């Protein structure tokens, strides 16, 4: 009897997992303990070892498709065992199909890449594997320039530029124009990160009664200050501070006076955080990630600019740890650089509030009985009404306006 290889539960709250990469291919000989595939959970990528020594066959599971825990994904045939496809694997293969979210009718159109196409024994960085997968690229066709021939991100990108799109690549790419027929659609299972974002934000909208306060704030003084800070930072060798950094600094300062905005819900209690950890919403390869300025309350602007630059770089290089990407006490989301005037953001649970920042643009405003042009920006605070009341949120907005319009008051 061949030994079943299942998709194992590797984390406490895991019900499904996704195979991110196979390290072996059909018919390969594996030794007990060899890594045979990588599995992505909500939290991390884990390596799964072969449960026995023998030949691996009937690899059923596709890459990138969520599979229920305990589903057989392949079989290991012990030495001397007949290599015919036994009936059990065939029957269980149906379980795999049933366990995945791809229904029978959708299956032919689903552009999931068959596991058989997965390169085995290839050395490639996880990022290279991901890009290749996203683009329907067979890694075996890509030459690696890294240590011991390892394929890196640059290798994959260069390969994609040099080669005309192959059929497989086109199939895996999003259709450029929405087509009337379903055959042009693309069904892409959630990535591990997308799943977290989806779950957390749905939970937030479902459980946290959101309300929104918007203020238009004049940015002349903040702009001037940023200009002066840029010169000073150049002298002291700190990165040039962005508007986001300045807003984070201002928020960190005034949050001290607004403990209920720097708070989280915890069951039927409010947790007032002693430390101010400000999450900054950012985008990475189409995914939302929120690196955290830890202990932002204790940072001056140069320190904050440095930390911000470090987080940004770490995010791009994927060197940030999960701890650096979670656990903030307040979040700022700035979409001003994309020309967005104003917007409302969904609270990052269990936090109690999030600040959405729009673009700064000259607008006519009344000043001393005259209509004048001033750089204005719109700030919208989303609050969880379970723990934050309207007046408390409004007081925060008053201080935010005062601080941004008169940043010297913070000194």
């Amino acid at each position: 009897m061949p030994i079943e290889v299942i998709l194992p539960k590797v984390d406490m709250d895991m019900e499904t997992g996704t195979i991110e990469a196979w390290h072996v291919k059909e018919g390969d000989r594996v030794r007990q303990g060899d890594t045979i595939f990588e599995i992505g959970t909500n939290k991390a990528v884990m390596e799964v070892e072969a449960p026995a020594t023998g030949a691996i066959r009937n690899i059923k599971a596709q890459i990138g498709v969520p599979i229920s825990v305990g589903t057989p994904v392949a079989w290991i045939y012990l030495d001397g065992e007949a290599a015919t496809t036994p009936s059990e694997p065939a029957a269980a293969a149906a379980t795999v199909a049933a366990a995945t979210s791809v229904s029978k009718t959708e299956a032919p159109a689903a552009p999931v890449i068959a596991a058989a196409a997965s390169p085995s024994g290839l050395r490639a960085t996880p990022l290279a594997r991901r890009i290749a997968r996203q683009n329907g690229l067979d890694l075996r066709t890509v030459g690696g320039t890294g240590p011991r021939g390892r394929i890196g991100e640059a290798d994959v990108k260069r390969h994609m530029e040099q080669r005309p799109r192959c059929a497989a690549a086109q199939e895996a790419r999003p259709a450029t124009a929405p087509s009337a027929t379903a055959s042009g659609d693309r069904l892409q299972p959630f990535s591990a990160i997308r799943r977290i974002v989806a779950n957390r934000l749905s939970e937030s909208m479902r459980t946290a009664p959101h309300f929104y306060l918007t203020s238009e704030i004049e940015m002349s003084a903040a702009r001037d200050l940023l200009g002066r800070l840029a010169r000073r930072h150049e002298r002291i060798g700190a990165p040039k501070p962005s508007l986001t950094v300045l807003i984070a600094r201002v928020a960190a300062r005034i949050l001290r006076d607004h403990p209920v905005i720097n708070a989280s819900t915890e069951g039927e209690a409010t947790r007032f955080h002693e430390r101010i950890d400000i999450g900054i919403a950012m985008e990475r390869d189409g995914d939302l990630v929120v690196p955290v300025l830890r202990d932002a309350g204790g940072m001056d602007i140069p320190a904050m600019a440095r930390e911000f630059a470090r987080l940004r770089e770490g995010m791009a290089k994927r060197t940030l740890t999960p701890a650096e990407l979670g656990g903030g006490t307040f979040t700022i989301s700035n979409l001003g650089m994309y020309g967005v005037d104003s917007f409302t953001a969904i609270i990052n649970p269990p936090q109690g509030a999030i600040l959405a920042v729009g673009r700064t643009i000259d607008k006519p405003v009344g000043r001393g009985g005259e209509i004048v042009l001033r750089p204005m920006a719109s700030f919208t605070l989303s609050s969880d009404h379970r723990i934050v009341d309207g007046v408390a949120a409004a007081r925060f907005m008053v201080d935010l306006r005062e601080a941004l319009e008169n940043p010297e008051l913070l000194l």
Partner: protein
Amino acid sequence: MSADQKPNQRPELAALDDATVAQALTRMHLIRKFEEAAEASYMRGLIHGTMHLSIGQEASAVGTTLPLEAHDYILSTHRGHGHCIARGAEPRLMFAEFFGKETGYCKGRGGSMHIADVEGGNLGANGIVGGGLPIAVGVGMSIKAQKNGRVCMVFFGDGASNEGAFHEALNMASIWKLPVVFVCENNKYGMSMDIGHAMAVANVADRAAAYGMPGHCLDGNDLAGVAAVAKVAIARARSGEGPSLIECKTYRWRGHSKSDRNLYRSKEEIEEWRNQDPIRRLEDELKAHDRFDAATLMKLEEDAQRDIDAAVEFARACPDPDPKDLTRDVYAL
């Protein structure tokens, strides 16, 4: 020592008669097979929560408890399956507990980290690192007050020995000469923290000097050696001379818990320790001294596997708790 044993046998091994050593080996097999089966069940999603496996550490659990008497107590840890089985727990009731069944040791309410069997002398595992240490002091005081001649053996990890509770417990147990044996299972890591970064002394046993008690630093994968030292410490505790600290240097082959990515240690290191498998070491030594032949040893292992398979079958067929009993054993709110 029986007459027909080969010469040159270590006194520690010679001190264990065939029946005792066979029982010890069986218990080590049971622990290994139990945990492998628990792991397989977990991977299939049949067990909820997390669990901490002690595969590779069996000699420490079995060796230290071997000289205990039936009425003695143990206190276990989050990595406690081995302690329970070594103390004679029934694998089928443990599995029932893991599967959340009414027949489990704690009626399915406790799971992997909270197995207790008071009648069986197991006062309970504890999810709090170092949590058993102060309790052991209390148990020691109770034994002393009742003058019932028992001994309490408490297990904990290297990580726990850096908790304040460890130092307070050893100090008080020593001042009052309590009948406690402190057993530190030093498997080199507290989660992902290497002991080298967590301790200023080389051995946990070195800390015994601060509390005026004997400290024994042992090869924790040597069943006979562990049993010999445990015997001395247990006798000392029972005679009213006070506690001892035993450190078993050992290694967990598996990750800290089920969600460990093993990023803090190398495959080579794990391999190195796999080569010091406490079960194979004992078997090899028994064979070398002609005490057991290969077929007998094989049978012990197969019997243990059969027992564990049957235990899983039993537990899976047991009834689930009835929701109406939700508050039955709740005595405080």
